[in-house]
């Protein structure tokens, strides 16, 4: 489970730290505060680990524009990720990794990405046992700033990160990268950490092996194939080819194929989805599919030699309601059930506004499903909401709620329990006032503005 996550210089996230992540976490705040950017940053990191390095044009708009806000050069600030994770079957050790993407202009004022610098793995928060560093071509002020930034007390301090190449007799400018932007390693890298020298032998072969140990595999596995789920009921109205699909797309546009696959190959999951749907929307008894004989020409061209089908639900009288005559809320809820119950959901589930289209009285049950999913399948969830009913479901775990706001065009994040409720009640205690029981009506207190995270 990821326990802490720090993101720097990604979109509106100048520097945000979610440092007490729980199995299920909630981001709340006004529109355009940066909630979605946190999810996008995680997805970006996932894609990056999967080997998808964006080109200059794609990467450029992702950088937080320091120049605009602090009169710094954009190119001097890395996109960075740092995370700590609690490993399964281990109590104390915590792994962490960080990746930075540098952005700069060369002497011709051309925008260039510098491939990532990464600190891949370490154990423990106060003393590192293992550290591997890759791609330290940019061992310059950027590196020092970046490392110093991440290693603030109480975390380990890197004392001397200079002259790594020089000590090895290597000219830093000679370090090169392969066509996939992976660094070509050579020599031995070392740094001193809290006075202790950490070193690692590296090969001269190009490599991209972030996952070297069981711990690393566990940690980085959390970020594999992340999707930001935002079901779009309009997508369910469209015809979709019947084909084998075991996972749900971000917009849930492939439910026809997914549900067909579940029905044919994962009967248990299919029945669970059907039963949950009936529990929440009792008027519908079963899920149906209809193959369309003469689909529109453009779809035939798009899905050559594929049978196209649409989805429908049957009521207790045996009447079938095809997608275009079902309510958006019903379609959205069906999508949500498929996302939750898919056979191999991502280890980190990112979900935007799960309340969309769901009646307020059904929201608690929906959230119960999400909490159950996290507990039973060992999945971590980060979701966003604008619903007071969703917020109410976190009354027992306010430490899992993060208040996201935009201050001076930067996203700021506060932990509800530690940064909002506790300081509030301490201030009140000092003033001789009674503490406030915000969690008695958490959603209302949030929406009214007692806890922050509301529009101006």
């Amino acid at each position, binding site marked *: 489970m990821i326990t802490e996550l720090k993101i720097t210089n990604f979109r509106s996230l100048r520097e945000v730290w979610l440092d007490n992540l729980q199995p299920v976490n909630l981001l709340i705040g006004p529109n355009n505060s940066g909630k979605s950017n946190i999810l996008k940053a995680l997805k970006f990191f996932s894609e990056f680990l999967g080997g998808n390095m964006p080109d200059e044009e794609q990467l450029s708009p992702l950088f937080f524009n320091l120049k605009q806000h602090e009169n710094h050069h954009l190119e001097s600030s890395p996109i960075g990720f740092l995370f700590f994770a609690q490993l399964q079957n281990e109590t104390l050790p915590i792994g962490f990794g960080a990746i930075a993407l540098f952005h700069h202009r060369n002497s011709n004022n051309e925008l260039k990405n510098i491939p990532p610098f990464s600190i891949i793995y370490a154990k423990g928060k106060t003393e590192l046992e293992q550290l591997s560093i890759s791609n330290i071509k940019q061992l310059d002020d950027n590196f020092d700033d970046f490392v110093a930034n991440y290693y603030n007390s109480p975390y380990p301090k890197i004392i001397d990160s200079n002259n790594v190449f020089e000590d090895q007799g290597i000219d830093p400018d000679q370090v090169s990268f392969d066509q996939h932007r992976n660094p070509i390693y050579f020599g031995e890298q070392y740094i001193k950490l809290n006075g202790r020298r950490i070193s690692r032998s590296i090969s001269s072969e190009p490599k991209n092996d972030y996952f070297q140990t069981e711990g690393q595999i566990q940690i980085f596995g959390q970020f594999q194939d992340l999707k930001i789920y935002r079901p779009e009921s309009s997508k369910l109205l469209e015809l979709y080819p019947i084909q084998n699909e075991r996972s749900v797309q971000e917009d849930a546009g492939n439910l026809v194929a997914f549900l067909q696959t579940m029905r044919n190959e994962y009967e248990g999951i299919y029945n669970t989805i059907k039963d949950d749907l009936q529990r929440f929307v009792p008027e519908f008894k079963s899920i149906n599919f209809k193959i369309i004989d003469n689909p529109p020409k453009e779809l035939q061209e798009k899905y050559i030699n594929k049978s196209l089908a649409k989805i429908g639900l049957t009521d207790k009288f045996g009447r079938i309601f095809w997608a275009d005559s079902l309510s958006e809320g019903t379609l959205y809820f069906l999508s949500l059930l498929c996302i939750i119950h898919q056979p191999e959901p991502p280890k980190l589930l990112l979900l935007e506004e799960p309340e969309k289209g769901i009646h307020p009285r059904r929201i608690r049950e929906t959230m119960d499903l999400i909490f159950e999913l996290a507990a039973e399948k060992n999945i971590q969830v980060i979701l966003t909401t604008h619903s007071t009913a969703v917020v109410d479901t976190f009354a027992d775990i306010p430490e899992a709620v993060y208040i996201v706001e935009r201050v001076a065009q930067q996203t700021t994040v506060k932990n509800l329990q530690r940064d909002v409720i506790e300081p509030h009640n301490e201030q009140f205690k000092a003033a001789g006032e009674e503490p*406030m029981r915000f969690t008695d009506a958490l959603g209302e207190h949030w929406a009214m*503005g*007692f806890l922050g995270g509301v529009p101006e």
Partner: protein
Amino acid sequence: MREMKYGLLCEDDAHREFLRMALSFLAADSTNFEEVKTHIQAKNKREVDRNFAKACSVAFVRYKVDVFFVVRDVDSVNDVNFSELYTMFHGGLTEPHRHRSVIVLPVQCIEHWLWYLKHYNENPTMMKNIPLETRTRNDAKKEVYGHIKTSIAKQKPIIQELMRTADLKKLSHHSASFRKFHGDFMSVLQSLLPA
């Protein structure tokens, strides 16, 4: 001229605008009032009822205001309802803040006070009290804004214009609920100003 910061919990922005204009009018000789943005906002009466005491404490403790206002439409012309509400709000405020708080309870809604002001403008010579507060809330809104449902963007200039020329002395005379607000406010203001 003394500067004072005030906190506010009200049902809607019409309350906020009315109060802003009323304070500048009522304390024009002695005090400049400025609302502190606490970002605490109710969206209905029940939220005001449940949270006024907390909003008041937050305003004083966290935002260090000089005075706090709670504004809530009574929604009734019944004196008993007014008294019960007043007692509830007054009793709900904690001791250190009660004497620096003003409870504003328009009978039936704040648009009735505005309607009186509009009526004075349209009938400047008429001295007789027309008991507008017995008329419905929708009548008052329609009369003041032209429609029952209007945006705050349209309400604001109307409120400002009516308050700009407001005869609040006359309003005090005709509306018991405004008279109560006026009296309470002046008394709190008096207690806050140096002797």
